[in-house]
């Protein structure tokens, strides 16, 4: 087993564990903190795949900016420990768990458990993750999607202002 593989299993276990703790936690602030742990684990996974750029963006944008927003909203809403609505949710929750397990099972079959993990990274992956290659692709082959993203953000901005503005003239 290589160092990469050992590191992968440690980090992957961390990612799964923090994700489970996030959705089972009763306190929203704790959930958010577990989500940050999860994001960091994912960033390490990206690094193992030689995707340095994505890894840094993952930390800067998700663990940094978006998580701060989450914490702000939670504190503004002043949520206490969540009241337990176990009676109403119990039935739905067990159905949801069963369905999720079925979906997980089907996807694992589809991916083909024994086949996964063999092979290793293709040679192109070693250079694909650098800022240079991503930048080159972004402004050549993916120029149009890149520009459309700006429209998407503009549309979203207008939408948010329409919904949130206190008084329309």
């Amino acid at each position, binding site marked *: 087993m290589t160092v990469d593989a050992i590191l992968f299993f440690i980090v992957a276990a961390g990612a799964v564990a923090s994700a489970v703790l996030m959705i089972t936690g009763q306190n929203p602030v704790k959930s958010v903190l577990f989500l940050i742990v999860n994001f960091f684990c994912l960033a390490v996974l990206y690094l193992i795949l030689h995707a340095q750029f994505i890894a840094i963006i993952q930390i800067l944008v998700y663990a940094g900016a978006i998580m701060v927003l989450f914490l702000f909203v939670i504190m503004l809403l002043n949520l206490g420990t969540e009241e337990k609505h176990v009676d109403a949710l119990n039935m739905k929750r067990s159905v949801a768990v069963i369905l999720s397990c079925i979906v997980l099972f089907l996807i694992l079959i589809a991916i083909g458990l024994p086949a996964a993990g063999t092979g290793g990274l293709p040679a192109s992956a070693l250079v694909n993750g650098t800022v240079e290659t991503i930048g080159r692709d972004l402004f050549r082959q993916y120029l149009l999607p890149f520009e*459309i993203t700006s429209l998407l953000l503009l549309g979203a901005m*207008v939408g948010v202002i*329409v919904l949130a503005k206190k008084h*329309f003239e």
Partner: protein
Amino acid sequence: MDLLTPHLLSIGPLLTLVAVALLVLLLESIITKSEPVSFWTSVAGLLVSIGIAVPGIAVHGSAFGGMLRTGGSANYFSIIFFICALLTIVFSRDYLKKRDSVFGEFYLLILFATVGMVLMAAAADLIIVFLGIELMSICLYVLAGFIRGSVLSNESSLKYFLLGAFATGFLLYGIALLYGSTGSTSITFLTEHFETYASSRLFLAGIGLLIVGLAFKIGAVPFHMWVPDVYQGAPTPVSGFMATGAKAAAFSIIIGLFAQRFVHGVQIGTLLAILAAASMILGNVVAIAQTNVKRMLAYSSIAHAGYMLTGLAAGNAYGRDGILFYLLAYAFMNLGAFGLISFMEQEGEKHLTFDDYAGLGTTKPFLAVLMSVFMFSLAGIPPFAGFFGKYYIFVGAVQADMTWLAIVGVLMSVVSVFYYLRLVMVMYFQDTLIGQTASYSASSAAFVVLAALILLGLGVFPSSLLAIITTLY
């Protein structure tokens, strides 16, 4: 000439629309009392966009390194979206006045959503598909909640947003698996090499998740739960826009994936057939029990998603051309019907039940006649265009040895006659209620009449449109 110019020229309709949207955005921020200016700019811009898109239908090409398809079906769909946006904007002006929410931002969001739809129809790459869907959906989430003081409108917006975000997750996961199994996000590559990868379970799982995400957008059973509540709560013209434009946009992607080369094979054909049958049965049967006309039309739109999926499951040119014909006809009849409902609706979401239409035939014969035209067309009764759409689709299913599906479709069309004609019956054979009012401007009335006339024209001369449709792919 530099490298970019030919690409930009070939996406003329899209660029025009984006320019109009940005112009409206500027006008909104510069001018005080900007609503009338924004309204007329949007209307004029959409008319110009239609004018630019029409000649491009005859051309076939691609732009931006295989990111977009240009001309042909992309332009045909663009015209459908422009018509939907135009009718929605015209009808919504009267409606928003009634609900005390006349703001120019409404037209802006409609235009942005239309840009998203055009991208979806032109997409030759799954990345563009995703960006187009998101652009359209985000604008629709806001439009559904545009009446900010109304609890129903807020509920509609939030429900659509939460479920829509969930569905986007499926879509993205599907795209990721497809990329993982083939190393490409190009739709052209995927359709050309479909048979090579069809044995890969990873690939099929990706296709399956993609279908889930798209089936949500078209409101096919079992991903239809949101449709009635969202359509009921959203501003009435927006409901019409979602039922026609957004549905046509999602169908344009499904057609691009599965019906360009008819490669989907038995597995996916059966899957689509099951979705189609379930949508037709549930949509039509549950629609019978509705008392609210908006909810009735919501279930009817689920049923119509089923009819159109029937054409896809058939997997032949007949079925595909049937869908293309039906999507255009459906845009006119459904937007017309939602437009008339928005004329009748009164403050506080009132006058939306079947009983409120009692005796309309004597009090407002003009509106009653038009509503009857749209109901007849939705039910698929000749000589209106709805009949021919269904006819081509069912013929396609029979030719593909899916006679059972065609039989389900015909039986369910018969069921649908019951609830469409119930509205007509209520309008003509029941005593008038007091206090019936309708408010609409001359331009709205003109557009409804135009929609009805086009339905009649397409119904009498379907072959003229069909001749164009057969050249699209």
